[in-house]
Protein backbone atom coordinates (compact mmCIF):
# COMPACT_ATOMS: atom_id res chain seq x y z
CA UNK A 1 0.00 0.00 0.00
CA UNK A 2 2.94 2.27 0.31
CA UNK A 3 3.09 2.94 -3.39
CA UNK A 4 -0.54 3.94 -3.35
CA UNK A 5 -1.40 7.58 -3.88
CA UNK A 6 -4.72 8.86 -2.66
CA UNK A 7 -6.09 12.08 -4.03
CA UNK A 8 -9.15 14.08 -3.05
CA UNK A 9 -10.50 16.80 -5.34
CA UNK A 10 -12.91 19.08 -3.54
CA UNK A 11 -14.92 22.14 -4.42
CA UNK A 12 -18.50 22.98 -5.18
CA UNK A 13 -20.84 21.14 -7.50
CA UNK A 14 -20.52 22.19 -11.11
CA UNK A 15 -16.76 22.66 -11.02
CA UNK A 16 -16.27 19.46 -12.95
CA UNK A 17 -14.35 17.69 -10.24
CA UNK A 18 -15.78 14.27 -11.00
CA UNK A 19 -14.68 14.60 -14.57
CA UNK A 20 -11.34 15.74 -13.17
CA UNK A 21 -11.13 12.60 -11.09
CA UNK A 22 -11.99 10.41 -14.04
CA UNK A 23 -9.34 12.04 -16.18
CA UNK A 24 -6.75 11.65 -13.47
CA UNK A 25 -7.60 8.00 -13.08
CA UNK A 26 -7.48 7.42 -16.82
CA UNK A 27 -4.14 9.13 -16.97
CA UNK A 28 -2.91 6.63 -14.42
CA UNK A 29 -4.22 3.79 -16.57
CA UNK A 30 -2.34 5.28 -19.47
CA UNK A 31 0.75 4.92 -17.34
CA UNK A 32 -0.08 1.27 -16.90
CA UNK A 33 -1.13 1.72 -13.30
CA UNK A 34 -4.25 0.82 -11.43
CA UNK A 35 -6.77 3.43 -10.48
CA UNK A 36 -10.07 3.69 -8.69
CA UNK A 37 -12.28 6.76 -8.80
CA UNK A 38 -15.26 7.39 -6.59
CA UNK A 39 -17.41 10.29 -5.48
CA UNK A 40 -20.02 11.30 -3.00
CA UNK A 41 -23.61 12.23 -3.69
CA UNK A 42 -26.15 14.51 -2.15
CA UNK A 43 -29.74 13.44 -1.55
CA UNK A 44 -30.57 10.91 -4.29
CA UNK A 45 -28.53 11.88 -7.38
CA UNK A 46 -29.41 15.55 -7.37
CA UNK A 47 -27.05 18.46 -7.17
CA UNK A 48 -23.90 16.62 -8.11
CA UNK A 49 -20.96 15.67 -6.00
CA UNK A 50 -18.96 17.95 -3.81
CA UNK A 51 -15.88 15.83 -3.97
CA UNK A 52 -14.18 13.26 -6.14
CA UNK A 53 -11.60 10.75 -5.03
CA UNK A 54 -8.91 8.91 -6.91
CA UNK A 55 -6.56 6.19 -5.78
CA UNK A 56 -3.60 5.39 -7.98
CA UNK A 57 -1.43 2.36 -7.36
CA UNK A 58 0.97 -0.06 -8.99
CA UNK A 59 -0.81 -2.92 -7.27
CA UNK A 60 -4.36 -4.05 -6.75
CA UNK A 61 -6.54 -1.54 -4.98
CA UNK A 62 -8.80 -3.15 -2.42
CA UNK A 63 -10.57 -0.68 -0.17
CA UNK A 64 -11.76 1.81 -2.78
CA UNK A 65 -12.45 4.87 -0.67
CA UNK A 66 -10.02 7.60 0.21
CA UNK A 67 -9.77 8.24 3.93
CA UNK A 68 -6.56 10.13 4.59
CA UNK A 69 -5.27 11.51 1.36
CA UNK A 70 -1.83 12.27 0.03
CA UNK A 71 -3.02 15.09 -2.15
CA UNK A 72 -5.93 17.43 -1.50
CA UNK A 73 -7.28 19.95 -3.97
CA UNK A 74 -9.71 22.53 -2.64
CA UNK A 75 -11.18 25.09 -4.95
CA UNK A 76 -13.47 26.64 -2.35
CA UNK A 77 -13.09 27.69 1.24
CA UNK A 78 -15.98 25.47 2.32
CA UNK A 79 -14.38 22.43 0.75
CA UNK A 80 -11.02 23.19 2.28
CA UNK A 81 -12.54 23.65 5.71
CA UNK A 82 -14.34 20.37 5.43
CA UNK A 83 -11.58 18.18 4.09
CA UNK A 84 -8.34 19.69 5.31
CA UNK A 85 -8.19 17.34 8.27
CA UNK A 86 -8.21 14.38 5.90
CA UNK A 87 -4.85 15.35 4.44
CA UNK A 88 -2.00 13.20 5.69
CA UNK A 89 1.11 14.53 7.35
CA UNK A 90 3.53 15.60 4.65
CA UNK A 91 0.62 15.69 2.23
CA UNK A 92 0.23 18.18 -0.58
CA UNK A 93 -2.54 20.77 -0.42
CA UNK A 94 -3.42 22.62 -3.58
CA UNK A 95 -5.81 25.52 -3.08
CA UNK A 96 -7.19 28.26 -5.20
CA UNK A 97 -5.76 31.58 -4.20
CA UNK A 98 -9.22 32.63 -3.00
CA UNK A 99 -8.95 30.05 -0.23
CA UNK A 100 -7.22 31.09 3.00
CA UNK A 101 -3.94 29.29 3.55
CA UNK A 102 -4.62 27.06 6.52
CA UNK A 103 -2.24 27.00 9.43
CA UNK A 104 -0.95 23.45 9.36
CA UNK A 105 2.79 23.20 9.17
CA UNK A 106 3.00 19.47 8.58
CA UNK A 107 1.90 19.80 4.96
CA UNK A 108 3.02 21.45 1.78
CA UNK A 109 0.62 24.13 0.58
CA UNK A 110 0.37 25.47 -2.95
CA UNK A 111 -1.93 28.45 -3.30
CA UNK A 112 -2.43 29.32 -6.95
CA UNK A 113 -4.87 31.38 -9.04
CA UNK A 114 -6.56 28.36 -10.57
CA UNK A 115 -10.05 29.79 -10.97
CA UNK A 116 -8.76 33.11 -12.22
CA UNK A 117 -6.50 31.45 -14.75
CA UNK A 118 -9.47 29.57 -16.14
CA UNK A 119 -11.84 32.51 -16.19
CA UNK A 120 -9.43 35.25 -17.17
CA UNK A 121 -6.60 33.71 -19.08
CA UNK A 122 -8.58 31.05 -20.90
CA UNK A 123 -11.89 32.84 -20.51
CA UNK A 124 -13.67 29.56 -19.81
CA UNK A 125 -14.39 29.18 -16.09
CA UNK A 126 -15.38 25.56 -16.65
CA UNK A 127 -11.85 24.48 -17.46
CA UNK A 128 -10.74 25.22 -13.90
CA UNK A 129 -10.75 21.46 -13.32
CA UNK A 130 -8.24 20.93 -16.11
CA UNK A 131 -6.05 23.74 -14.90
CA UNK A 132 -6.14 22.14 -11.46
CA UNK A 133 -5.18 18.75 -12.84
CA UNK A 134 -2.21 20.26 -14.60
CA UNK A 135 -1.20 21.98 -11.39
CA UNK A 136 -1.45 18.79 -9.36
CA UNK A 137 0.45 16.87 -11.96
CA UNK A 138 3.18 19.38 -12.23
CA UNK A 139 3.65 19.45 -8.46
CA UNK A 140 3.30 15.76 -7.67
CA UNK A 141 4.13 13.94 -10.89
CA UNK A 142 1.44 11.51 -9.99
CA UNK A 143 1.06 10.70 -13.67
CA UNK A 144 3.17 11.49 -16.67
CA UNK A 145 2.40 14.62 -18.64
CA UNK A 146 1.71 12.64 -21.78
CA UNK A 147 -0.73 10.34 -20.07
CA UNK A 148 -2.57 13.28 -18.59
CA UNK A 149 -2.77 15.03 -21.94
CA UNK A 150 -4.02 11.86 -23.57
CA UNK A 151 -6.64 11.39 -20.89
CA UNK A 152 -7.86 14.97 -21.13
CA UNK A 153 -8.20 14.86 -24.88
CA UNK A 154 -10.11 11.60 -24.72
CA UNK A 155 -12.71 12.90 -22.28
CA UNK A 156 -13.38 16.52 -23.21
CA UNK A 157 -16.16 17.37 -25.65
CA UNK A 158 -15.17 17.47 -29.28
CA UNK A 159 -14.23 20.93 -30.41
CA UNK A 160 -12.84 21.93 -27.03
CA UNK A 161 -9.52 20.19 -27.45
CA UNK A 162 -7.56 23.37 -27.98
CA UNK A 163 -9.04 25.17 -25.05
CA UNK A 164 -8.25 22.23 -22.84
CA UNK A 165 -4.72 21.82 -24.12
CA UNK A 166 -4.34 25.46 -23.37
CA UNK A 167 -5.76 24.96 -19.89
CA UNK A 168 -3.23 22.24 -19.26
CA UNK A 169 -0.43 24.45 -20.45
CA UNK A 170 -1.48 27.35 -18.29
CA UNK A 171 -1.81 24.99 -15.35
CA UNK A 172 1.68 23.65 -15.84
CA UNK A 173 2.93 27.21 -16.11
CA UNK A 174 1.29 28.24 -12.87
CA UNK A 175 3.59 25.92 -11.03
CA UNK A 176 6.67 26.65 -13.05
CA UNK A 177 6.15 30.35 -12.61
Amino acid sequence: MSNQCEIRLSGSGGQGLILGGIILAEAALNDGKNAVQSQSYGPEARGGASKAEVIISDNDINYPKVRECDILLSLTQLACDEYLHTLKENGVLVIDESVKTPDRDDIKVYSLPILKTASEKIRKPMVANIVALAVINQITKVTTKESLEGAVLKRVPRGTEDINTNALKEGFNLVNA
Partner: protein
Amino acid sequence: MTSTLVENHFRIGKLPHIWCPGCGHGIIMRSIAVAIDELGYDKNDVCVVSGIGCSSRAPGYMDFNTLHTLHGRALAYATGVKMANPDLKVIVITGDGDCAAIGGNHLIHASRRNIDITTVVFNNNIYGMTGGQYSPTTPTGEKGTTAPFGNIDRNFDLCNLAKGAGATYVARSTAYHANMVKQQVKAALENKGFSFVEAVSICPTYYGRKNKKGDAVSMMEYLKNSTVNVKAADKLPKEKLEGKFLVGEFYKSEEPEYTEEYKKIIDSFQKER
Protein backbone atom coordinates in the same frame (compact mmCIF):
# COMPACT_ATOMS: atom_id res chain seq x y z
CA MET B 1 -34.14 38.11 9.05
CA THR B 2 -36.87 36.64 6.95
CA SER B 3 -40.19 37.84 5.74
CA THR B 4 -43.12 37.46 8.08
CA LEU B 5 -44.75 35.07 5.70
CA VAL B 6 -41.71 32.82 5.55
CA GLU B 7 -41.17 33.18 9.27
CA ASN B 8 -44.72 32.13 9.98
CA HIS B 9 -45.13 29.26 7.58
CA PHE B 10 -41.76 27.69 7.14
CA ARG B 11 -39.27 25.89 9.31
CA ILE B 12 -36.67 28.59 9.11
CA GLY B 13 -33.92 26.37 10.41
CA LYS B 14 -34.29 24.12 7.40
CA LEU B 15 -33.88 26.96 4.90
CA PRO B 16 -32.34 27.66 2.47
CA HIS B 17 -33.80 24.60 0.79
CA ILE B 18 -31.75 22.06 -1.13
CA TRP B 19 -33.16 22.94 -4.51
CA CYS B 20 -30.80 24.14 -7.22
CA PRO B 21 -30.35 27.81 -8.06
CA GLY B 22 -33.31 28.93 -10.13
CA CYS B 23 -35.40 25.83 -9.49
CA GLY B 24 -39.05 26.74 -9.84
CA HIS B 25 -40.15 24.60 -6.93
CA GLY B 26 -39.33 27.27 -4.34
CA ILE B 27 -41.61 29.79 -6.00
CA ILE B 28 -44.53 27.40 -6.04
CA MET B 29 -43.98 26.30 -2.48
CA ARG B 30 -44.14 29.91 -1.36
CA SER B 31 -47.37 30.45 -3.25
CA ILE B 32 -48.95 27.57 -1.40
CA ALA B 33 -47.93 29.09 1.90
CA VAL B 34 -49.40 32.44 0.90
CA ALA B 35 -52.64 30.71 -0.06
CA ILE B 36 -52.90 29.07 3.35
CA ASP B 37 -51.98 32.33 5.00
CA GLU B 38 -54.65 34.27 3.16
CA LEU B 39 -57.25 31.64 4.01
CA GLY B 40 -56.27 32.03 7.63
CA TYR B 41 -56.09 28.32 8.37
CA ASP B 42 -54.72 27.21 11.70
CA LYS B 43 -51.38 25.58 11.03
CA ASN B 44 -52.33 22.63 13.20
CA ASP B 45 -55.26 21.94 10.91
CA VAL B 46 -53.16 21.62 7.80
CA CYS B 47 -51.43 18.42 6.75
CA VAL B 48 -49.05 18.46 3.81
CA VAL B 49 -48.19 15.10 2.29
CA SER B 50 -45.67 14.34 -0.43
CA GLY B 51 -44.01 11.44 -2.20
CA ILE B 52 -40.38 11.32 -3.26
CA GLY B 53 -38.70 13.73 -5.64
CA CYS B 54 -37.23 17.21 -5.54
CA SER B 55 -40.73 18.61 -5.35
CA SER B 56 -41.66 16.15 -2.64
CA ARG B 57 -39.01 17.64 -0.41
CA ALA B 58 -41.27 20.67 0.09
CA PRO B 59 -43.15 19.49 3.19
CA GLY B 60 -39.88 19.27 5.09
CA TYR B 61 -39.67 23.05 4.91
CA MET B 62 -43.27 23.85 5.66
CA ASP B 63 -44.39 24.38 9.21
CA PHE B 64 -47.52 22.23 9.24
CA ASN B 65 -48.21 18.60 9.96
CA THR B 66 -46.02 17.13 7.27
CA LEU B 67 -45.60 13.68 5.82
CA HIS B 68 -42.89 12.71 3.36
CA THR B 69 -43.91 9.29 2.09
CA LEU B 70 -42.80 6.94 -0.65
CA HIS B 71 -42.35 7.60 -4.32
CA GLY B 72 -45.79 7.78 -5.88
CA ARG B 73 -47.79 7.04 -2.77
CA ALA B 74 -48.56 10.47 -1.36
CA LEU B 75 -52.21 10.36 -2.35
CA ALA B 76 -52.75 6.96 -0.79
CA TYR B 77 -51.24 8.12 2.49
CA ALA B 78 -53.20 11.34 2.27
CA THR B 79 -56.39 9.36 1.76
CA GLY B 80 -55.70 7.55 5.02
CA VAL B 81 -54.99 10.81 6.83
CA LYS B 82 -58.15 12.43 5.52
CA MET B 83 -60.34 9.43 6.27
CA ALA B 84 -58.99 9.27 9.80
CA ASN B 85 -59.35 12.96 10.45
CA PRO B 86 -61.66 14.69 7.99
CA ASP B 87 -61.16 17.99 9.78
CA LEU B 88 -57.64 18.27 8.47
CA LYS B 89 -57.00 20.34 5.36
CA VAL B 90 -54.94 17.86 3.42
CA ILE B 91 -52.58 19.09 0.73
CA VAL B 92 -50.51 16.79 -1.44
CA ILE B 93 -47.35 18.16 -3.01
CA THR B 94 -46.02 15.93 -5.74
CA GLY B 95 -43.96 15.87 -8.92
CA ASP B 96 -44.84 14.87 -12.44
CA GLY B 97 -43.04 11.58 -11.95
CA ASP B 98 -44.37 11.04 -8.49
CA CYS B 99 -47.99 11.68 -9.34
CA ALA B 100 -48.24 10.66 -12.97
CA ALA B 101 -45.70 7.87 -13.44
CA ILE B 102 -45.53 5.59 -10.43
CA GLY B 103 -48.41 7.34 -8.68
CA GLY B 104 -50.81 7.55 -11.61
CA ASN B 105 -53.23 5.03 -10.23
CA HIS B 106 -53.62 6.79 -6.92
CA LEU B 107 -54.22 10.04 -8.76
CA ILE B 108 -57.08 8.72 -10.84
CA HIS B 109 -58.66 6.93 -7.91
CA ALA B 110 -58.44 9.87 -5.54
CA SER B 111 -60.00 11.94 -8.32
CA ARG B 112 -62.73 9.39 -8.80
CA ARG B 113 -63.60 9.26 -5.12
CA ASN B 114 -63.71 13.05 -4.91
CA ILE B 115 -62.05 12.92 -1.54
CA ASP B 116 -61.31 16.37 -0.16
CA ILE B 117 -57.59 16.62 -0.87
CA THR B 118 -55.84 19.42 -2.71
CA THR B 119 -53.08 18.13 -4.94
CA VAL B 120 -50.43 20.47 -6.27
CA VAL B 121 -48.11 18.97 -8.88
CA PHE B 122 -44.79 20.70 -9.39
CA ASN B 123 -44.53 19.71 -13.03
CA ASN B 124 -41.03 20.25 -14.35
CA ASN B 125 -41.44 17.69 -17.14
CA ILE B 126 -38.60 15.56 -15.85
CA TYR B 127 -37.43 13.37 -13.01
CA GLY B 128 -35.31 15.97 -11.27
CA MET B 129 -34.27 14.08 -8.18
CA THR B 130 -32.78 11.14 -10.04
CA GLY B 131 -30.98 13.26 -12.54
CA GLY B 132 -33.02 13.97 -15.61
CA GLN B 133 -34.87 10.94 -16.93
CA TYR B 134 -37.90 11.68 -19.08
CA SER B 135 -41.24 11.69 -17.31
CA PRO B 136 -44.83 11.16 -18.45
CA THR B 137 -45.02 14.90 -19.08
CA THR B 138 -41.79 15.27 -21.03
CA PRO B 139 -42.94 16.46 -24.45
CA THR B 140 -42.51 13.96 -27.26
CA GLY B 141 -39.18 14.43 -28.98
CA GLU B 142 -37.44 16.09 -26.04
CA LYS B 143 -34.51 14.45 -24.37
CA GLY B 144 -33.87 12.89 -21.03
CA THR B 145 -30.99 10.78 -19.81
CA THR B 146 -33.09 7.72 -20.62
CA ALA B 147 -34.28 9.21 -23.91
CA PRO B 148 -30.95 10.05 -25.51
CA PHE B 149 -32.48 9.95 -28.97
CA GLY B 150 -35.58 11.90 -28.06
CA ASN B 151 -38.61 10.73 -26.15
CA ILE B 152 -41.07 8.68 -28.23
CA ASP B 153 -43.71 8.59 -25.49
CA ARG B 154 -46.64 10.91 -25.89
CA ASN B 155 -47.01 13.09 -22.82
CA PHE B 156 -49.95 13.35 -20.47
CA ASP B 157 -52.01 16.46 -20.12
CA LEU B 158 -52.28 16.10 -16.36
CA CYS B 159 -55.28 18.38 -16.05
CA ASN B 160 -57.19 16.37 -18.62
CA LEU B 161 -56.28 13.20 -16.86
CA ALA B 162 -57.44 14.42 -13.45
CA LYS B 163 -60.60 15.84 -14.88
CA GLY B 164 -61.34 12.69 -16.84
CA ALA B 165 -60.89 10.69 -13.68
CA GLY B 166 -63.29 12.84 -11.72
CA ALA B 167 -61.50 15.69 -9.96
CA THR B 168 -63.95 18.47 -9.13
CA TYR B 169 -61.50 21.35 -9.31
CA VAL B 170 -58.85 21.40 -12.02
CA ALA B 171 -56.51 24.26 -12.83
CA ARG B 172 -53.07 25.02 -14.19
CA SER B 173 -50.63 27.80 -13.52
CA THR B 174 -46.85 28.15 -13.61
CA ALA B 175 -43.92 29.16 -11.47
CA TYR B 176 -43.88 32.39 -13.41
CA HIS B 177 -47.54 32.98 -12.60
CA ALA B 178 -46.94 32.70 -8.89
CA ASN B 179 -50.00 34.68 -7.95
CA MET B 180 -52.15 32.49 -10.11
CA VAL B 181 -50.76 29.47 -8.28
CA LYS B 182 -51.84 31.09 -5.04
CA GLN B 183 -55.32 31.87 -6.31
CA GLN B 184 -55.80 28.36 -7.63
CA VAL B 185 -54.55 26.73 -4.45
CA LYS B 186 -56.98 28.89 -2.49
CA ALA B 187 -59.86 27.89 -4.71
CA ALA B 188 -58.72 24.28 -4.52
CA LEU B 189 -58.60 24.33 -0.74
CA GLU B 190 -62.04 25.84 -0.57
CA ASN B 191 -63.45 23.20 -2.92
CA LYS B 192 -65.01 20.40 -0.93
CA GLY B 193 -63.71 17.53 -3.01
CA PHE B 194 -60.67 16.42 -4.92
CA SER B 195 -58.80 19.40 -6.34
CA PHE B 196 -55.95 19.27 -8.77
CA VAL B 197 -53.59 22.15 -9.44
CA GLU B 198 -50.83 21.66 -11.96
CA ALA B 199 -48.12 24.20 -11.30
CA VAL B 200 -45.68 24.07 -14.18
CA SER B 201 -42.21 24.39 -12.73
CA ILE B 202 -38.74 24.67 -14.18
CA CYS B 203 -35.73 22.43 -13.71
CA PRO B 204 -32.82 24.33 -15.17
CA THR B 205 -30.37 21.72 -13.93
CA TYR B 206 -31.65 18.76 -15.89
CA TYR B 207 -34.55 19.51 -18.14
CA GLY B 208 -33.13 22.87 -19.11
CA ARG B 209 -29.62 21.64 -19.69
CA LYS B 210 -30.58 18.43 -21.53
CA ASN B 211 -32.90 20.30 -23.84
CA LYS B 212 -30.90 23.48 -24.32
CA LYS B 213 -33.58 25.67 -22.77
CA GLY B 214 -31.09 28.13 -21.35
CA ASP B 215 -30.84 29.22 -17.76
CA ALA B 216 -33.55 29.71 -15.16
CA VAL B 217 -34.37 33.16 -16.47
CA SER B 218 -34.87 31.90 -20.03
CA MET B 219 -37.07 29.13 -18.76
CA MET B 220 -39.14 31.61 -16.78
CA GLU B 221 -39.39 33.76 -19.90
CA TYR B 222 -40.69 30.74 -21.72
CA LEU B 223 -43.39 30.22 -19.12
CA LYS B 224 -44.29 33.87 -19.40
CA ASN B 225 -44.51 33.89 -23.17
CA SER B 226 -45.96 30.49 -23.90
CA THR B 227 -49.07 30.55 -21.81
CA VAL B 228 -52.55 31.63 -22.71
CA ASN B 229 -55.29 31.96 -20.17
CA VAL B 230 -58.09 29.57 -20.82
CA LYS B 231 -60.56 32.42 -20.56
CA ALA B 232 -58.82 34.24 -23.38
CA ALA B 233 -58.16 31.18 -25.48
CA ASP B 234 -61.58 30.97 -27.09
CA LYS B 235 -61.32 34.46 -28.41
CA LEU B 236 -57.87 34.03 -29.91
CA PRO B 237 -57.22 32.97 -33.48
CA LYS B 238 -55.66 29.55 -33.86
CA GLU B 239 -52.25 30.86 -34.92
CA LYS B 240 -51.95 32.68 -31.64
CA LEU B 241 -52.35 29.41 -29.78
CA GLU B 242 -49.65 27.53 -31.59
CA GLY B 243 -46.86 26.39 -29.35
CA LYS B 244 -48.70 27.75 -26.34
CA PHE B 245 -50.28 26.00 -23.46
CA LEU B 246 -53.29 26.96 -21.44
CA VAL B 247 -53.37 28.12 -17.87
CA GLY B 248 -56.32 28.99 -15.67
CA GLU B 249 -59.24 27.12 -14.19
CA PHE B 250 -60.39 24.28 -16.41
CA TYR B 251 -63.07 22.66 -14.38
CA LYS B 252 -65.12 23.15 -11.27
CA SER B 253 -68.14 21.25 -10.02
CA GLU B 254 -69.91 20.37 -6.85
CA GLU B 255 -70.29 16.71 -6.11
CA PRO B 256 -70.63 14.55 -3.02
CA GLU B 257 -67.39 14.47 -1.09
CA TYR B 258 -66.07 11.12 0.05
CA THR B 259 -65.56 11.61 3.77
CA GLU B 260 -68.90 13.41 4.05
CA GLU B 261 -70.62 10.52 2.35
CA TYR B 262 -68.92 8.13 4.70
CA LYS B 263 -69.99 10.21 7.66
CA LYS B 264 -73.58 9.75 6.56
CA ILE B 265 -73.18 6.01 6.91
CA ILE B 266 -71.73 6.37 10.38
CA ASP B 267 -74.43 8.82 11.36
CA SER B 268 -77.15 6.47 10.21
CA PHE B 269 -76.03 4.05 12.89
CA GLN B 270 -75.61 6.72 15.51
CA LYS B 271 -79.28 7.52 15.07
CA GLU B 272 -80.25 3.90 15.32
CA ARG B 273 -78.75 3.59 18.77
